[in-house]
């Protein structure tokens, strides 16, 4: 237990430090990179809670995909740091008041006393051959099937909202449409045969004149 506790404090300290860096960095890209670190150490904390599937999904989804999205958003916004910093002192009192109110609310609602954690003893550590992903699967698709389907609806709403908000047609752009490309027929669309008058006679005349010219140059 001692080593596990030590690991917990190490990863918890990394998480808190990284989260602090996220909100204090001036450069938003650095803040996002610290957020990646915070996600990694949170995944380690979840592993310590023996939620290994959730921990790995956290790395896969948040670090792999959501952070890429955050970086894209940062690049799109073209953040002007000077305008962001302007008015910091002016809004500081109001910000402090809101922060204190929120902190008190969080302490009241999710404080350690509210869940009765002391009534639930720590469960015994799982054996080495217990598969966490199986335990999740056995519950998720039977007892929690309704929230599971709701998750699908939320994802559907996300797809439609993203498309409605960001998709726009650009009629002026030039691009190749592969479906039109492969519809080209072999004969008339690819090769155009041009009937042309033969120029062989003209070329012979030209050649004879060139020979006569060179003979004149040689004799001179």
């Amino acid at each position, binding site marked *: 237990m001692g080593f596990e506790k030590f690991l917990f404090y190490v990863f918890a300290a990394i998480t808190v430090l990284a989260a602090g860096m996220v909100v204090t960095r001036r450069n938003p890209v650095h803040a996002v990179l610290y957020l990646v670190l915070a996600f990694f150490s949170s995944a380690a904390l979840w592993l310590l809670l*023996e939620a290994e599937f959730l921990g790995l999904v956290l790395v896969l989804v948040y670090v792999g995909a959501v952070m890429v*999205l955050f970086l894209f958003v940062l*690049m799109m916004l073209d953040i002007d740091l000077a305008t962001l910093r302007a008015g910091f002192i002016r809004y500081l009192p109001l910000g402090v008041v809101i922060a204190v109110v929120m902190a008190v609310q969080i302490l009241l609602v999710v404080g350690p006393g509210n869940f009765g954690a002391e009534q639930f003893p720590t469960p015994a550590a799982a054996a080495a051959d217990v598969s966490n992903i199986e335990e999740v699967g056995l519950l*998720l698709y039977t007892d929690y099937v309704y929230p599971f389907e709701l998750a699908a*609806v939320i*994802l*559907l709403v*996300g*797809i439609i909202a993203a498309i409605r908000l960001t998709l726009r047609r650009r009629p002026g752009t030039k691009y190749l449409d592969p479906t039109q490309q492969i519809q080209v027929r072999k004969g008339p669309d690819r090769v155009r045969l041009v009937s042309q008058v033969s120029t062989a006679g003209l070329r012979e005349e030209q050649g004879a004149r060139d020979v006569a010219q060179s003979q004149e140059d040689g004799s001179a």
Partner: protein
Amino acid sequence: MLENYLPILIFILVGILVGVGSLGLGYLLGPRRPDQEKDSPYECGFEAFENARLKFDVRYYLVAILFILFDLEIAFLFPWAVVLDDLGVFAFWSMVIFLGILVVGFIYEWKKGALEWE
């Protein structure tokens, strides 16, 4: 269960050690003679004239968010695939409904042309 992850912890520690160690040794042992020309930003020989932070097209955002949504869908498939033999028909159809709802979104996306890169 946690003892299975001890090799990964050791691997992470060794990785950090190698990364920090090589950078730290270079910092400690390498010669440093900075001058103004060395420290000034450069861009292939001419003066840097633009901010490095370019604005991206919003289409990249659309591709990224569609990727995330289907990435999450795949994350839901993993536990299902593991326990399908134990759960039987009910779990099978619950996943079919789940995928059906998302296929609606996929058809919408396809028909709208969100996957086209024009």
